[in-house]
């Protein structure tokens, strides 16, 4: 386990690995599946235009990753898809959503919708893990010793027959400094877009949604924030018409400031909000939008 490999899906991710790599304390290389960049001693650049399905890709990664004792990924749906498969092929241990590194074999991770933080020790062999970059130091200088092109030729039996484009325009939830999230009372997609989208655009914010909002067709699935959606940590999180379920809070509790707007003064979200406003969101959000200077 002398070295670590950080596998990045794109160049945005390569900027997120240095904090975790420093905490791990092992010499490391990066593998860029798509995009340029990298960090650590060596950057392997695979140059995929679209990262192929996990089954063939994991196999194509075997020979490179076999040389490392620790193989790390930025937590995301796509990385967990691949990491689990790779861990299976390597018969390695795997940890998901690491939030702190005690040593190269002892890690902290959340469980049960963030109600528990577990210490997990790897007893032997290789470890594959995914980590939440927002829990690690940011803006550490990242340099790359050398860059090497690597030809990976995955033979997937799985075919991607339809890929959806990223819903464009607004900042990404993972990177946004401000997030405005709406819940069930937003009624329908048009209301959600008008009331929440309008404010978000004025603030240069990303838009998020609860599961209730996504399930009822008010918001797109990739906007779901929470235990089984995106885990976010913005400077400011504005939750409007959100009750504050454990599952939703699991995704937002590392936000710097949480603002809750809810008509029910006893809504659980007020227990975790820095600032709580008991008001109808349909009057409060337009008032904020009107008062804000905007970006």
């Amino acid at each position, binding site marked *: 386990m002398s070295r670590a490999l950080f596998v990045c899906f794109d160049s945005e991710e390569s900027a997120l690995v240095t904090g975790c790599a420093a905490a791990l304390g092992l010499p490391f290389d990066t593998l860029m599946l798509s995009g340029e960049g990298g960090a650590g001693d060596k950057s392997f650049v695979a140059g995929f235009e679209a990262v192929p399905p996990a*089954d063939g890709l994991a196999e194509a990664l075997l020979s490179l990753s076999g040389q490392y004792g620790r193989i790390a990924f930025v937590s*995301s*749906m*796509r990385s*967990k*898809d*691949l*990491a*689990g*498969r790779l*861990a*299976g*092929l390597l*018969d390695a241990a*795997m940890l*998901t*959503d690491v939030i702190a590194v005690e040593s190269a074999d002892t890690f902290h991770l*959340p*469980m*049960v*919708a963030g*109600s*528990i*933080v577990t*210490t997990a*020790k790897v*007893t032997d*062999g290789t470890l594959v893990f995914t980590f939440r970059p927002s829990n690690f130091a940011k803006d550490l200088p990242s340099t790359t010793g050398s860059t090497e092109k690597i030809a990976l030729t995955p033979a997937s039996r*799985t*075919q*991607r*027959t*339809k890929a*959806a484009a*990223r819903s464009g325009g607004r900042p990404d939830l993972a990177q946004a400094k401000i997030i405005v999230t709406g819940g069930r009372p937003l009624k329908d997609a048009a209301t959600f877009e008008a009331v929440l989208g309008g404010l978000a655009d004025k603030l240069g914010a990303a838009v998020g949604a609860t599961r209730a909002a*996504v*399930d009822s067709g008010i918001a*797109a*699935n*990739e906007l779901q924030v929470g*235990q*089984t959606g995106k885990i976010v940590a913005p*400077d*400011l999180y504005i939750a409007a018409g959100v009750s504050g379920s*454990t599952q939703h809070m699991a995704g937002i*509790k590392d936000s710097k400031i*949480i603002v809750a707007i809810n008509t029910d*003064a006893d809504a659980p979200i*007020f227990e975790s*909000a*820095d*600032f*709580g*406003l*008991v*008001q109808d969101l349909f009057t*409060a959000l337009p008032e*904020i939008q009107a*008062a*804000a200077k905007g970006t």
Partner: protein
Amino acid sequence: MRILLPIKRVIDPYAKVKPLGDGSGIDTGNVKFDVNPFDEIAVEEAVRMKEKDPSIETIAISIGGAECEDQLRKCLAMGADKAILVESTREHDPSTIAHELKAWVEELKPDLILMGKQSTDGESNQVGQMLAALLGWPQATYASKITIEGGNIEVVRETDSGEETLTLPLPAVVTTDLRLNEPRYIALPGIIRARNKPLEKATEKSNKEPNIRYTKFQSPPARPAGRKVANVTELLAALSERGVSL
């Protein structure tokens, strides 16, 4: 066609849980247990497939203590044809579960394995992918729509940025996401009626040792208590005191 449904008994996803005082585990003294919601979605999907094609056989399988029988009975009540309880009280991690399931796949020879993308308590999101890797089968995680056509399965899946469609040959492993379906509600009488369905008890086939040990369980640091503001003007003032001006 045979569908295998791996089931995990989990802490009731709506329960408030705390670690034990000495940090040696999770205090489950007063909490209920249920079928992992994502596995329940897998069972529902399999049962709906069977309702359209009665030649399909569905088998639920769970690895754990005798108490997992409750969750398997619920799956039978939902419509699974039979259940297998692999009794085990030793420590497990995702990899030992994947190895045990692999041994059962070799015996039962299913065409499709449908299971939750993750459990709501351990939250690992690993077993499906590991099992697919051990079997050398293709995988589609995070399914929100499944269509079987001939020897292929088409899966619409949720992604970080939206959704995409994968086509893969059977046999395959598919893991379920929230929006695949809404599981039917099973009232207690239904669970009692399912008592007549076959539930086989078996011993472990795999002796894979876990390579992860969970050594401590703690509460996360609590957020400091906040305060209420009277109106939007006060809110904006409070934010600007904290260095955020909108």
